[in-house]
């Protein structure tokens, strides 16, 4: 039954200068993902459609798009979950490039500003020992390690960045993913760059811009909680200001 119904799909076509939605009719199939729909359009209906994907199994973080106004990892998003129930048809889908990032073409955005902010947030590990030092002993059950573990499964898909209204309103804001990364390193006992990191995340575009709307945590496909990470950074920056940080 599902094979015969048609999914009315609007796909955003354009570039940095602008664009518009183009309608496609895509055959509805069982267990169809949004990425399957985009791939069908590119392979069967219009080979000029630009989009980005790699692993198709929710690991690489390259296929995120706005699906019916919400940022999602398209390879793990079933059409049945998001297309609605349009009677007599296969539902409706609107697919657009990720919000808050410059569009290169069609569904492909420039991820450079997103990753630049990871660097700006000191999201890089700064070893406190040389490689000649013995293996660091980190207690897996320690509170700091637990806090770090809660945030390290980020796949860099920028769904949180696209969901964030603070990013939309303040282009300097580092954003949920970069700050979440900084929080995992703040809790890494082996890291030696803490003072620089606290400075970076409490700078003008830092963690104190967050209004705790929670959209990042709401839409993170890996169920991470950048809102909690940013709240942690706020606490640490306050402690640092008061001289309470070790």
């Amino acid at each position, binding site marked *: 039954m599902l094979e015969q119904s048609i999914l009315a799909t609007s796909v955003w076509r354009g570039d940095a200068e602008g664009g518009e939605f183009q309608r496609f009719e895509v055959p509805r199939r069982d267990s169809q993902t949004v990425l399957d729909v985009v791939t069908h359009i590119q392979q069967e209906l219009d080979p000029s459609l630009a989009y980005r994907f790699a692993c198709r199994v929710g690991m690489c973080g390259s296929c995120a798009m706005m699906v019916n106004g919400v940022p999602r990892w398209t390879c793990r998003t079933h059409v049945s979950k998001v297309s609605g129930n349009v009677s007599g048809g296969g539902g409706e889908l609107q697919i657009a490039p990720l919000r808050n990032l410059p569009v290169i073409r069609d569904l492909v955005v420039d991820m450079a500003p997103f990753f630049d902010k990871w660097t700006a947030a000191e999201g890089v590990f700064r070893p406190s020992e040389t490689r000649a030092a013995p293996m660091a002993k980190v207690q897996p059950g320690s509170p700091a390690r637990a806090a770090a573990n809660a945030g390290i499964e980020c796949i860099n898909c920028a769904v949180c960045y696209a*969901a964030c209204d603070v990013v939309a309103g303040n282009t300097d804001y580092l954003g949920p993913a970069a700050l979440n990364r900084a929080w995992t390193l703040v809790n890494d006992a082996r890291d030696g760059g803490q003072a620089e990191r606290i400075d970076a995340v409490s700078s003008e575009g830092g963690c104190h811009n967050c209004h705790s709307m*929670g959209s990042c945590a709401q*839409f993170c496909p890996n169920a991470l909680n950048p809102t909690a990470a940013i709240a942690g950074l706020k606490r640490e920056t306050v402690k640092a200001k008061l001289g309470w940080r070790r």
Partner: protein
Amino acid sequence: MIRPHRRHPLWFAYLLHRVSGLALALFLPIHFYVLALALTDPSGLDGFLRWTEHPLVKLVEFGLVFLLAVHFFGGLRLLALELLPWSPRQKSLAAGAVAGAFGVSTVFLLNAL
């Protein structure tokens, strides 16, 4: 229309906190002006206070108390969120702030009527 990525409880809590804060900011100058009448125009103040006995004004005051209470409780939630160890129950706490504000403002209204 509220865009799809904003339709979740904590975004509505954010909106309510902002709108209530803005409304209170607009209310405060009027509040201080009325208080100042006690010094500048006591009979004018008496007239104003008689006017506030009207049930419709009490109903508006209910809204005002709700805004104040929801901004207060919501602000406590945000302070706790930012300064105390993280609690995963943020949606429940936000709902509690609204419920608490509704309770406080309802008690005010029942007393006033």
